[in-house]
């Protein structure tokens, strides 16, 4: 059965191009995608994930405010009963050119399972999803 992903661009971010391509690529790779488009709040992500019984939430952030927009996301997921749901974030997630390792650490600490740097091709995300969702149970951050 096809795995379900909730996809969207978080916060006040309107970068729509990458989102449309991810949507296309993830579907092409056999996922069921609930695409929320741009300007998606944490609440909208979570609501959609609950409704669709999603296996993963894929957050994009391009415009630089990702760090502000993602604060507390994992906690909100937990509260909403999405404990252990797979949480990815990718794009230009901080302001400016910063060493990726540091940025990655900060977002891992926030509770994201994987963090992808600027210009990551969709294939990298698909590969990771296939790995992380390969078991026959949901496989969140705990495994």
């Amino acid at each position, binding site marked *: 059965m096809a795995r379900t992903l909730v996809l969207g661009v978080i916060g006040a971010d309107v970068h729509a191009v990458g989102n449309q391509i991810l949507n296309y690529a993830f579907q092409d790779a056999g996922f069921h995608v609930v695409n929320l488009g741009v300007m998606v709040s944490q609440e909208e992500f979570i609501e959609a994930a609950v409704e669709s019984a999603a296996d993963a939430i894929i957050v994009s952030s391009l415009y630089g405010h990702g760090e502000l927009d993602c604060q507390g996301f994992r906690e909100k997921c937990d509260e909403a009963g999405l404990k252990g749901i797979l949480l990815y974030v990718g794009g230009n997630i901080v302001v400016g050119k910063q060493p990726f390792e540091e940025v990655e650490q900060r977002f891992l600490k926030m509770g994201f399972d994987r963090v992808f740097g600027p*210009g990551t091709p969709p294939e990298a995300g698909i590969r990771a999803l296939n790995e992380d969702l390969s078991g026959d149970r949901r496989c969140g951050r705990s495994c």
Partner: protein
Amino acid sequence: MELSNKKWPLDFFMSQRQEVLKTWPTGADVDLDEAIGYQKGIPLDRRFVTKLNEAQKSRKTLVQPRAGVPLISEHIALLSHLEKEGEADLLPTTIDSYTRLNRYEDAQRGIDESKATGKAMLNGFPAVNHGITGCRMVTSALQTPVQVRHGTPDARLLSEITLAGGFTSFEGGGISYNIPYAKNAPMKETLYNWQYCDRLVGLYEDAGISVNREPFGPLTGTLVPPCVSNAVAIIETLLAAEQGVRNITVGYGQCGNLIQDVAAIRILEKQTNEYLERFGYKDVTISTVLHQWMGGFPQDEAKAFAVICWGSSVAALANATKVIVKSPHEALGVPTKEANAAGLRATKQMITMLADQSLDDGGRLEEEMSVIREETSCILERTLELGEGDVALGTVRAFEAGVIDVPFAPSRYNAGKIMPARDNNGAVRLLDAGNLPLNEKLLRFHRGKIHQRAEAENRGVSFQMVIDDIYAISKGRLVGRPH
């Protein structure tokens, strides 16, 4: 008041104004008479319009960066650096994304966290939160005129504060700051809100203060066919002129094919002036701006320099009045001031090196100009028809009908039916024209061009072509060919 392209009565504007200024505490400080007095004190050579007019007269191309950071002193330091080390002819103040969406509380959080962490946590300068005093600190610290650059669907308060704050140019428009920058803003509403901004600029003009306005040309920056962006620029010019704006820079985002880009800029200027004349707007001065490549950039800095330089060549060869500059950090994040200045210097070298050359007026250029002119006419005439002669009303209906349609736009008020792709020489054409009201001849032209490419690539016409084209520049090509 119903939306229509009619100059707002002064008392109506003033009553709206009361409300607008209340939407955030710093609004209370704006006093129009005081603001006009302050603007009168700004020396002519620090005004945007002066520089643009001079450049146009001498057929020079001016160089302008994008730049904005959350804190005032850092922002001044940044702009000073770009003025000195970047040799910028014109300066910007790029507004952060929260302010653009009137989320001033979030902007405040960004200011506070930036102060606390010592890192810029906002992607621009939150001018509303910093208020008139903050803005004046910025604009008075520099020798070079400063423009507000943003992407704000409802920029009424921002325009009030920044114009009172000493900025002498204000970017944006009801279409160009809606469709690429918003998801849920009805066209009716943003056109209306931008009539407010234009009316405000008109009041400054009435008082003898010349303020430049600039519709945002590139829209989504991604494979936008020239006819679409030119049509939008012309509409926003007409709307602005009606409200009393007198100095307008129409813009265009580089598509990548030299002939198409030069043609687009040249015909944009021409056709804008023609429509202004047709509708009886006199004394409106039109200049042009070319935006260096607005789509995805290569991550490698040397390669990014090439993209920057190619845009600069096009601006020079097209004799654009100014060029908006990218930095070698484009693909990665908001640039450091050093990277930003490096982009500027590369651009400056290119522009001045090519100052004495322009593109041959050969057959292909003329041909491309007449194609764009005809396409743009189709769109504009249908828009006017839909509006029963009123361009504001027509615009609302044109977007509903997909008669104007911007590719890859986030807005739900955009049809999103057209699909652009490059032809075999890299010019942007229509793989699917959606509901654009192009005549049969033009549609055949586009189909022919796309098929020519498909044949050359030995593959069918498909969405994969579009995807390949979107990635192409960042992977070092213009046309996204299959491997």
